[in-house]
Each structure stands twice: as structure tokens, then as C-alpha cells.
């Protein structure tokens, strides 16, 4: 285990150096949710029945979770790039724990998300979002967000190792933008037709978004929601456990075998 921690730490260091040397992708991923908050909050917010300020505080948890979900692109792109460029193969010839390379990537994703959440929430506060629950619940909300981000990182790394090609990963990455559209991240699901609502509420993004709204005290659990949204904290933990249990072993196996 200490070997894994040491190697994983070295790989985390590598990812952070990579970001420092080449901060373009970081700047894009960090400013995107802020831009979306301002656009959606003021453009869509003006057209919705919900008052603008209320919509913006509804949107803040939604965008946090949508960003965490779309963040799987980072891991996917970098794992595909590393495979394509032969860096993965170099690592695979080293006496390094087989889980260390994907773990380093997932840990780097976590650090970047944690750092990016601070400016985003400051902008959120400026446009009317507030923590309306207890401090403990707010900490719980952030912990849940990071757990979800950790789980999506493994999904991305697995997909990146599978595609092995930066271009294909880029195209697949574009498709992940659809995922939050079919959830409660940007709109309330109550207005959707029955089957679509069910589909949206079984989207893992919906459970985590609802959990954050609940813990921050931004919006109540809607009536008649599907189980993961009706029990958002338990639902979120269950979804994270499922994603990690499936994708972490798949990613490590894929990395170890290389084919």
C-alpha cells in the first residue's frame, strides 16, 4: 500500500507539473462553469417562470455537479494522449504499482476540481447563491461533490485507455456535454413527461445535484421523484460506489494489460 501511495504521489506530481507547464486546458475547464453560470443564470433565468435569483441559486449546485461529470473528459483525454504518445508504455515497463498511474490521474483531477470550486462558488455568492443549511451540511455537500468527481475520473481514465487516441477521445468528450442536459442540473425535472423524468432522475448527475441542493438548502426534494433523487444523499453515495466499483478495476486492468 505504501508503494502505491508513493508511486501514486509521484504520478500526481507529474500531472500537476503537466498542468503548470501547459495551463491552457486548466484555464478552459475552470472558466467554463463560471461562464455558463452567468449565461444560463441571466439569459435562461430571464425566460423562466422561476425568478432570476432563485434560478441562479438553483443553478450553482447543478453546474458544480455537471462540471464534475464533464470533468471525466480530462482524464479521458490525458489517458488517451499518454497511450497514443507511448508514455503509458514507458510507465508500464517500470516497476511501479499497476494502480499508481490511473490513481495519480484521478488524484490530479480531484485537486484541480477542489481548486476550481473556490472561484466558482465566489462568483455564485456574487450572483445570489447562499449556503442556507448548516456549515456541517455544506462541508458534506463539498465532500460528496469530490467523491463524485473521483468516481467520474475513473470512468474517464477507463474510456481514455480504451480509445487510445486523442482525436477519438476529443469527439467522445464532446458527447459527454449531453449528460447533464438530461438531468435536473439545469432545469427542474418535475415538468418533464413521465418517462423522460424517470430517465433524467436515474441519471447519477441528478442524485448528486439534488443532494447538493438539499445540503446547501437551495431547493427541496420534489414530490414523486425516483428513488435516487427522493433519497439524494444515499442515492449519491450508491451511485459513486457503483461507478467506482465498476470503473476503477476496469481502468487498472486495462492499464496493466495494455490491450
Amino acid at each position, binding site marked *: 500500500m505504501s508503494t502505491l501511495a508513493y508511486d501514486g504521489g509521484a504520478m500526481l506530481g507529474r500531472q500537476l507539473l503537466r498542468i503548470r507547464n501547459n495551463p491552457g486546458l486548466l484555464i478552459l475547464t475552470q472558466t467554463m462553469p463560471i461562464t455558463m453560470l452567468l449565461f444560463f443564470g441571466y439569459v435562461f433565468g430571464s425566460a423562466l417562470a422561476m425568478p432570476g435569483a432563485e434560478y441562479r441559486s438553483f443553478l450553482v449546485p447543478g453546474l458544480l455537479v455537471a462540471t464534475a461529470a464533464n470533468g471525466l473528459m480530462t482524464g479521458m483525454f490525458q489517458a488517451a494522449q499518454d497511450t497514443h*504518445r507511448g508514455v503509458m508504455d514507458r510507465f508500464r515497463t517500470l*516497476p511501479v504499482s499497476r494502480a499508481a498511474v490511473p490513481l495519480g490521474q484521478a488524484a490530479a483531477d480531484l485537486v484541480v476540481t477542489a481548486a476550481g470550486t473556490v472561484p466558482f462558488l465566489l462568483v455564485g455568492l456574487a450572483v445570489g447563491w447562499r449556503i442556507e443549511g448548516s456549515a456541517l451540511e455544506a462541508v458534506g455537500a463539498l465532500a460528496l461533490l469530490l467523491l463524485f468527481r473521483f468516481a467520474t475520473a475513473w470512468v474517464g481514465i477507463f474510456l481514455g485507455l480504451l480509445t487510445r487516441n486523442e482525436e477519438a477521445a476529443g469527439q467522445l468528450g464532446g458527447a459527454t456535454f449531453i449528460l447533464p442536459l438530461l438531468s435536473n442540473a439545469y432545469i427542474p425535472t418535475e415538468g418533464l413527461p413521465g418517462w423522460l423524468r424517470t430517465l433524467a432522475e436515474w441519471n447519477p448527475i441528478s442524485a448528486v445535484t439534488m443532494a447538493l441542493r438539499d445540503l446547501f438548502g437551495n431547493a427541496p426534494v420534489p414530490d414523486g421523484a425516483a428513488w435516487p433523487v427522493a433519497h439524494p444523499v444515499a442515492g449519491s453515495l450508491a451511485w459513486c460506489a457503483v461507478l467506482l466499483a465498476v470503473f476503477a478495476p476496469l481502468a487498472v486492468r486495462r492499464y496493466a494489460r495494455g490491450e
Partner: protein
Amino acid sequence: MTSTYAVLSEGLEKRFGEVHALRGLDLAVAQGTVCGLLGPNGAGKTTAVRLLTTLLRPDAGSARVAGHDLLRDPDAVRGSIGVTGQYASVDGDLTGRQNLQLFARLHRVRGPAGRAGELLDRFGLAEAADRPASTYSGGMRRRLDLAASLVRRPEVLFLDEPTTGLDPASRNRIWDCVRELTADGTTVLLTTQYLEEADQLADDIALVDRGRVAHTGSPAQFKSVIGAHVEVVVTDPDVLVKAAAVLDQLTGAEPSFDHERRAVAAVTRDATLTLPRLVRELDAAGVPLLDASLKPPTLDDAFLRLTQEAQETQDTQEEERAA
């Protein structure tokens, strides 16, 4: 078993779907030597290296690398090898220094910063040390690759086409590095497209063809398969037959004529035949010479001839089977 072989493989097989890339590769590389793995494209050289460096698992067969079982103890193998090649690359987003420090750390080298500095100096990369590796020239990149495989001295170094696409100066620099390493006792397994490279560096050559080792031997042995090419040009077409008789006597091989050029040629495997002796014998026989040449065989000739022979043998076998 305490083996004197740094690499020893028996019956390695690997399939990729329909493609049978390796069909029982037996390879033995003695400790402290350089073995050149040659073969036409698609012969299985790269697959062989990918198996021996633990990047792929064989479908059948076994191998020991630096005394460790490839299948049972891949981590011990990884701890004893260095790999530089077309596929195992450094990280272009990191600087040369950052790359070497990372690899030193992963190899548990004490003082990774100091080790990285040493290697940067040794490989002439000190000036470019703090630039991203993606900005390096091909030669610098290859030297950084090689340095990264040497952060901790490997027992066995795998070099997969280490100088492909490099200019002669960069190529010589890589060759010098390899010679220094072998002088220190490192075993090297080298794949290359350039026969000259194998001739320069390798103690032994293994010719891989269709997933098997078809021939092994020293570069000199490979060349002796072909023999030297002797050609004489005479002033008068009438003495051509007389010249041919002398060549026949000297080489024991049937001479071939080129009447238009008034030339006759033969192949000799006799290493003691020299140009002065050839000229003396022809002169004594009263042959008026215009030109004479004795060209030593190249590894290219041997390579072409052996892969051709292997192809013909296989074709014959297949015809026999079909008949």
C-alpha cells in the same frame, strides 16, 4: 538456474486476432553482449520486444529476463530492464529535467535531482534541460529517451530502432552511448532497420522471419554466408575465358560473364583472397587487366539472401503439403 543468458526465451507465441505475430520465438542473449534483432517489417521484432519488456503477455511459451521469470515475476523483470523505443516515450509536456526526476523517483533512486543533472550533462542536454521535451529535436528526444532508461543502471537494455530517422551525427552519439554501456557490462537487445547499425554494435545477430528466429550468428558469420564479390574487366574479349578460368580456380565458384562490358565475376567465401593476389594470378596467366575489384559482402546482402532463402523454403514446403 543461474543462467549466463540475460534473455532466454522458449517458444514465445503471440496472436493478434488473425495475425500470428510470433510462432515460437527462441532467443538466447548472453550476458554482457549486444544482440541485434533483424528482420523484415512485420517479422515480429517489435512484438518480441513488447513481450520481453512485459508490455504484452505471450499466448504460449516462457522467458527469463535478467534471471527473472517473465510470467511469474514481471515486476522483478521491470526492475532490471530499461526500455527505449519507438513506442516507450518520455512525456513531452514535461521538461527534460522533470522527466528524468520523475523516472528517478519511480525507480527509487536516491537524490533524483542530482541523478537527473548527471544524466543531462552526460547526454549533452544540460542547456535544454528546462525546456518541454516536446520542443526537442529528434536527436535530443532520443537521447532523453535513452537517459530515461538509464536513471538506474539496467541489467538488460532494450533498444527498439534507437536511431531511426536520426542524422549521422546524432546516430553516432547514440552508438557511443551504447558502447559505453556495454563496456560497463549491460546486456543490450537491439532491433534495427539498419544493418550497418547491427554490424557496428552487435556481437550476435538473430534474424527474425515470420515470427521465428530463422538464423543466428555473429555479423562476420552472416557475411560469410554471402561471400565476397570478385569482378575483373579485361581489355580484349578474347581473353575473357582465360580470366574466367583463373577466377574459377581461385574461388571454386562458377564465374558469370558480362560480354558487353568485357567483365567476368564470381563470388568467393575464401577470406584469404586479396586484391593483390588476384591481380598477381591474373597477370601470371597473361590476362591484360583493365580493372579488378574485390568487394566485401555487406550485411544487407546476407539479409536479403537469407530472408529470400527462408521464403523459398517455405514456399517449397507449402507446395509439397498442397501436392
